[in-house]
């Protein structure tokens, strides 16, 4: 029983991490109908950013995560300005391909600049700390990431649903032309959304180096899982992405432990297929 709870808890914590990574992707997808292939590379950039802050100035990842968020906000906004903006309104595939090229570019620039070394921060505030709750071991870094994920998702959700800016974002997502007629600067909304999407993944990446090593290939699997989380949750739905991420975390943990670790991603991707067979527009899609 203790093992069962432990596995479930690990799964949930991982699910929250996936939710944090997926949140930005979900936002971008929902508003702009763009799959950002370079999402995992945004995560990697934030991890490097946080790592270097920690390595050179001994800044803890908790603090660097904020800076990481801000940094990737700028990266996201730049990506929009230089690349995505020019693909909007053209073939649906062009944004996807452009971001695929971008991911290749970013990955290899990091390989070139930072070498393929994997890097892990030592002696961080959270690193390696655990506590025991009724026989379940709870790792502090993952727990903090989970809490940050919940808080951030809540903030993003409120922002979209309850603020004037959020209404403008929703209006833009529903009908760009109509929104423009109502006097919304959709260009600015897009820029902001891409930046915000970047900021979310930037915060995730900023926190990660306290337990996960940074290297140029680190984003690959994360971005794949984030795609599945977002699609499973349903077109741009933040609560959907959260639920899907938690499900994926749990399925990954249970399949990994009770079937075999090699099958854990088979189960995760299989789950996606099953879900969309039943609900072709995802859990919360309409």
């Amino acid at each position, binding site marked *: 029983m203790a093992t069962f709870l432990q596995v479930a808890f690990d799964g949930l914590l991982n699910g929250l991490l996936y939710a944090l990574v997926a949140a930005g992707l979900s936002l971008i997808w929902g508003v702009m109908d763009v799959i950002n292939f370079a999402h995992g590379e945004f995560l990697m950039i934030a991890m490097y950013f946080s790592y270097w802050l920690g390595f050179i100035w001994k800044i803890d990842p908790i603090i660097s995560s904020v800076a990481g968020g801000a940094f990737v906000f700028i990266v996201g906004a730049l990506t929009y300005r230089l690349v995505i903006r020019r693909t909007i309104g053209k073939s649906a595939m062009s944004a996807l391909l452009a971001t695929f090229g971008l991911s290749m570019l970013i990955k290899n620039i990091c390989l070139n600049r930072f070498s393929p*070394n994997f890097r892990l921060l030592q002696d961080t505030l959270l690193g*390696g700390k655990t506590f025991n709750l009724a026989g379940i*071991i709870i790792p502090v870094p993952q727990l903090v990431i989970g809490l940050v994920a919940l808080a951030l998702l809540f903030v993003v959700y409120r922002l979209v649903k309850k603020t004037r800016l959020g209404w403008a974002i929703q209006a833009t997502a529903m009908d760009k032309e109509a929104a423009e007629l109502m006097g919304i600067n959709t260009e600015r909304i897009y820029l902001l959304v891409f930046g915000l999407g970047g900021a979310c993944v930037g915060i995730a990446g900023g926190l990660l180096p306290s337990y996960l090593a940074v290297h140029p290939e680190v984003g690959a699997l994360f971005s794949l899982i984030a795609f599945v989380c977002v699609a499973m949750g349903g077109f741009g739905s933040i609560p959907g992405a959260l639920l899907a991420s938690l499900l994926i975390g749990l399925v990954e*943990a249970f399949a*990994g432990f009770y079937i075999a*670790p*090699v099958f854990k991603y088979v189960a995760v991707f299989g789950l996606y297929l099953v879900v969309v067979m039943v609900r072709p527009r995802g859990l919360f899609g309409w």
Partner: protein
Amino acid sequence: MKKSLFSKGLLLVLTAFLVVGAISGAAVAEEKVIKIGTLFPLTGPVALAGQRCRAAVETAAEVINNAHPELQVPLAAQEGVLDGYKFVLVHADHQGKPDVAKSEAERLFDQEKVWGIIGCYNSAATKPASFVAELKQRVFMCGCSSSGALTERDFKYFFRMAPTDKTESLEFVEFIEWANEHKGSDIKTVGLIYENTEFGKHAAEEGRMAAEAGGFKVVADVAFNPGATNLNSEVQTLKAANPDAVFGACLGGDYTLWVRTMKQMDWLPKVALNYCTGYQDPIIVGQLGDDANYFMGGTGYAPEFAELMPAVAAVEEIYKTKTDPSVPFDSDSIQEAVALLVLAQAIEKSGSLDPTVVAETLHANEWESPLSMGGKVAFAPGGQNIKAMSMLTQLQGGEYKRIYPVDLADTEPVIPMVPWKDR
């Protein structure tokens, strides 16, 4: 109108690369040089290891080409081989992909006109690349690809320096038996954790066979996908099976994640023995700090081996200038340097640049190799270095301490590993 213009455009594109191709075929100046191709994964998931291997070959070329009388390495004192022939390296990148390795090997031979190739780190890439070399009857020197299958193909032009997974597995089992007898370790069960790649799978199969032959029970067989985001279920599976000994084959970032996850889950086996992997990475101690301690592994070289291998330190200084960030040799990369040093001796001895003669010479003799543990290299049919040795080390206080075989040991092993809470 439209079509003819279109066809012109098409022809333009086609001729464009025709021209590029023609230029690339341009003749190579005939000097007293021996061109050697290096073929490593310089990009992709194992780029780190690949770039170090390349630096090691560069180091060996530097040692042979220039007069280095201060080094205790054969041919170091003179300049080049065969009265002034110098090695020129042509680097290529196979990205960890077998199909790229094959086509790059062909390009190195046909276009770059290299005399032989050193590579490829990944066993999966070494297979097709050395196949190409064998077809062309050119020498292929393999430093550290560890798959046993490579030297079971009866190739005549293929030579491998490093011990195979099999050798290491047998050594692991031997060590456990010794520990049971002399240390009262009471180890009965074995668990395997490995990345599910051609390397990891091979290692695990050999590990399982060796363990079962030694009468140990394999209670956990955990394969995972490299580049993992977490290893929770993997470690949880190990913890639930609770094997006394674990054989591990995890590389780079996965190794640190594995160790950290075990710490989080507050579990350790009595002994953790690692194949030629993340355990031996010279930067691992810096990355993991105290958490890296008490793990063990087969090690072909570590800087702490200075008294066993006195000639290495001076060569290592050159290697350090070629790596960024600067690192000492590790068990993998040093074998790539050995590959070129042995090849140079064979060329010098055979007095010829005929690949067949050199390959026969390589087979017929025993070579001095101060960079190899044991100091000798000799090849069995199929190309395996039968003098290849590795010994077991344990990280203690951030240093690789020699623990087995006993006659070469400098430290008593700590068995069982110190639990996390007592560190």
